[in-house]
């Protein structure tokens, strides 16, 4: 992402939220949606433009699970660890992902293709166990689905 494309985006975001009360988290959401994470130079700009100390921005980013400080892999595989999914084998599915991808939970594969993470309940308990692949929720994931999800991730990108 070049600096040139970054500046106009964030100024729009700042303009939208600057005057509204308690809008820092909303601005961070927009930034993460645009970049996939919150880059440090964008935080610096945000601090300046919104007149908020950088430390306050980092205080917020590091508190909430949703915000990332590092770019994610090209594909993000999120294994739901809600109670229903857990009871129906989410932990086993996660272990299979770890094994086949050669990463731990929260890590990205060496080639940067797949980021594996576990998430709190995505509220799709009726279809447990659930895996979210690049924003698409997939239900009733069996052991055989793990391989095909990984293959799909690698083929498409």
């Amino acid at each position, binding site marked *: 992402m070049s600096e040139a494309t970054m500046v106009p985006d964030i100024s729009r975001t700042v303009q939208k939220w600057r005057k509204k009360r308690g809008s820092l988290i909303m601005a961070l959401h927009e930034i993460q949606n645009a970049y996939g994470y919150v880059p440090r130079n964008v935080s610096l700009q945000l601090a300046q433009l919104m007149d908020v100390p950088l430390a306050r921005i980092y205080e*917020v980013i590091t508190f909430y699970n949703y915000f990332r400080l590092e770019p994610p892999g090209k594909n993000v595989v999120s294994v739901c660890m809600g109670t229903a999914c857990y009871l129906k084998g989410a932990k086993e599915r996660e272990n299979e992902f770890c094994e086949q991808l050669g990463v731990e939970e929260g890590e990205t594969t060496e080639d940067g293709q797949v980021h594996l993470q576990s998430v709190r309940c995505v509220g799709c308990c009726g279809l447990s166990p659930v895996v979210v692949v690049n924003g698409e929720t997939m239900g009733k994931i069996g052991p055989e689905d793990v391989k095909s999800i990984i293959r799909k991730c690698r083929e498409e990108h």
Partner: protein
Amino acid sequence: MSTCGIAAGAEPVYRALADAVRDRELNIEVRKTGCVGMCSMEPLVEINVDGAPRTMYGEVGVDAALRLLDEHVGRKHVVPGFQVPGVDQLGFYEEPGHDPKAKQHRIVLRNCGIIDPTHIEDYIARGGYQGIKRALAELGPEGVIDEIKKSGLRGRGGAGYPAWMKWSFARKAEGDEKFMICNADEGDPGAYMDRSVLEGDPHAVIEGMLLAGYAIGATTGFMYVRAEYPLAIDRIENAIRQARRLGLVGKNILGSDFNYDLEVRLGAGAFVCGEETALMASIEGKRGTPWPRPPYPAEKGLWGKPSNINNVETLANVAPIIRNGGAWFAKIGTKKSSGTKVFAVTGKARHSGLVEIPMGTSLREIVMDVCGGVPPGRRVKAVQTGGPSGGVIPEDKLDTPVTYESLQELGSIMGSGGMIVMDDTDGMLDIARFYMGFCVEESCGKCAPCRIGGKQMMNILDKIADGNGTPDDIILLKRLARSMRKASLCGLGQTAPNPVLSTLRYFMNEYEEKLLQPV
């Protein structure tokens, strides 16, 4: 077309049906609705055409959908094999009052699975916005609070505090500006009632926000929604835009002098933000750490102004109460727990999904009759309610009626409505560790009892699970639990020991088996 339906593949089914209907120039409407409640049988297609029986089909793929079009619509007969088994017996999908045998009674879910949630006209056609109309024309703010008082509605977010009392405190509080907040930060693992209501009937929540805001004298309402629910966010934002266009949100609502705006704020993945003071800190754009009460939000809430927070399900009950009167609502359920409760029944239940039952229905009726028990060959061992703040209820206590008090007596809570069915293969020590691990990770760290106590309890549970525990560890667990309960700052820490305590209470034998010397 809710998150579960789409996850199961509803989108291509919808497209195939819509395309086929257009290509064949059939005079039928293909509509998208919200969650019907039978999540484990998605994608669901209901066919309601003249001359053929109204039928719901489950697990419908593209090919099956086209076959339904040929046979059910074309030749007017029910296609065997696809029909959702025993819908009537399950009590799923019954409209209130229609069938005395039906176990479900839909008030909160009255429109879910019936209307197209993206069309405000659909909501209005089912009596929507009549509540706010009546409030503005007839009742006035005090009259609204009075109806809610008569109804006996209690908070559905967990604690069960009478809604009218909270509203009344906020109304009486002095302030130049007041806020109404909707808690849609459903972080409780295994619960998704709020998501389904937001996705399936967003205007019901907006009307509840209007009525509550009007009653307390608020000028702004905030909808605080989990960022993990993108479809719910979309639907609620769309619904607010529609309501604003029709003059239901904004200045001089329905020609009255009531001015009230609605804004959406997103959560960012912190369970503690479901706690009201932490939630307000988060809306203010800060870390979501709770502050000690008093002062209560009614006095000093968001930005120090009088505020009131209700959760999604509570708010979805409000408009029907104002429309039909508090007395109507009070007749449903039990004396002290009136109305209905929506549960997300999941885990090992055969038919997992959303059910709405009158309060006072027994747990056994919900698990066995409405949701079909557990798969053949297995036995129900326990039901967990209330998520990380609740506890397990063993099979022999399932005849207990569901009320706020009865569940508390069993060492659990109503909570927001997650109900997880466990069978004989589920180990209770494992469940206790699962929930304690959740609380350790989600502790905001502000107060020591929760931050340190949780971690220490976790260490002991791990030690026992590894086979290195001694009877003294059980005593220590109980002492830590007591301290956390008494000394933690907010509800998260105070209730975090509940899953451990309830498994100790009912399944001590499973702990004993792991101890070095028996107790």
